[in-house]
């Protein structure tokens, strides 16, 4: 272990590329256990979604940190909203969920929507009727929230599902809705020079 040698090499060496591939079934089983763990400790659907959201936030903060270092070398980060979201959609999503998210859309300036037609955390999940509109995508929403918060773009992030339209056989789409705080939007405007 060279890390403990005290010569300061830890800060100078670049971060390894990391292993980007894990069997999807291994991930699915761990995630399944995570949901079951929290389910036994909450009273209702809302609490369960919050618990998943919080678990995801921790993942998001760490994944973003690691990816920022890997991709940019020096750990340089985006200070503008759109590049950050694109970075999330492509690089982070690919590393956390195995594929880039399908689309990124803007609504009313301060609302952004990230959608994934086959989100890994929802791929194998059938929610029983007694849990109503529970969406395990809350975990992904938490991941996004963790990224945005640690990058300095506080936002409210929620997940909801939508059924595919007729003729589309992709199944359920998971949508992650981000509503940014006022200060973020104002800062963006200022930077735009308006």
């Amino acid at each position, binding site marked *: 272990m060279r890390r403990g040698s005290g010569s300061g090499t830890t800060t100078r060496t670049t971060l390894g590329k990391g292993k980007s591939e894990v069997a999807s079934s291994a991930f699915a089983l761990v995630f*399944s256990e995570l*949901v079951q763990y929290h389910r036994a400790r909450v009273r209702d659907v809302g609490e369960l979604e919050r618990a998943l959201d919080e678990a995801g936030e921790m993942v998001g903060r760490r994944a973003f940190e690691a990816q920022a270092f890997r991709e940019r070398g020096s750990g340089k980060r985006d200070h503008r909203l759109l590049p950050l979201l694109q970075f999330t959609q492509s690089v982070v999503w690919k590393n956390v969920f195995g594929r880039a998210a399908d689309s990124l859309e803007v609504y009313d300036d301060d609302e952004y929507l990230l959608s994934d037609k086959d989100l890994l955390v929802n791929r194998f*999940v*059938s929610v*029983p009727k007694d*849990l109503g509109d529970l969406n395990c995508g809350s975990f992904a929403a938490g991941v996004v929230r963790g990224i945005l918060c640690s990058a300095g773009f506080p936002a409210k992030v929620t997940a909801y599902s939508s059924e595919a339209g007729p003729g589309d056989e992709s199944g359920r789409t998971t949508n992650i809705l981000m509503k940014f705080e006022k200060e973020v939007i104002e800062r963006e405007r200022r930077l735009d020079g308006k």
Partner: protein
Amino acid sequence: MSTTTPVAGVAHAVDARALGACAASAMAPGRITSVWVINKSGGLIYHRAFDAVDGRGETHAMRLDANATLRLASVWHSMHAIARKVSPTRGCVGIESVECDTFDLYCFQAETGTKIVMTTTKGTVDARGTLRRAHQAFYAYALQNPFYEMEMPVRCELFDAEIANVVRSVNERT
């Protein structure tokens, strides 16, 4: 298995002529009429029957009530276990198929003791491949589903959909 020598082909043609219509219908694709999943203690955890239309346009359907299916599943589980015990050779995996006059039954037992069983009309079916796909569906959409309790009845819409897909891919062959 996949390559047929000309000699074997001739032999087969002679056989088919000798056996007449019976052999001809045996060459038609078989249709799946039901899929069962039996847990390791012999309990039925999934059962679904399908209406299968054969080459002559006749519909085959299995009509069993819920209690009958439970009973048959547990009988099959016992028969399967007995077959393994009484086998004169080592390494017997139990009954893999049963061929009857009017239908065939195929069974696959996973390492965990879960059995996937399907019944088909008479005819050719890639039983191994189909059972394997059904087992994969069980693994993916039931075992990896956080809301599925082990050894309990499977009520997962994604599993239902995948089983329907597997059956459709077999039943719509021509």
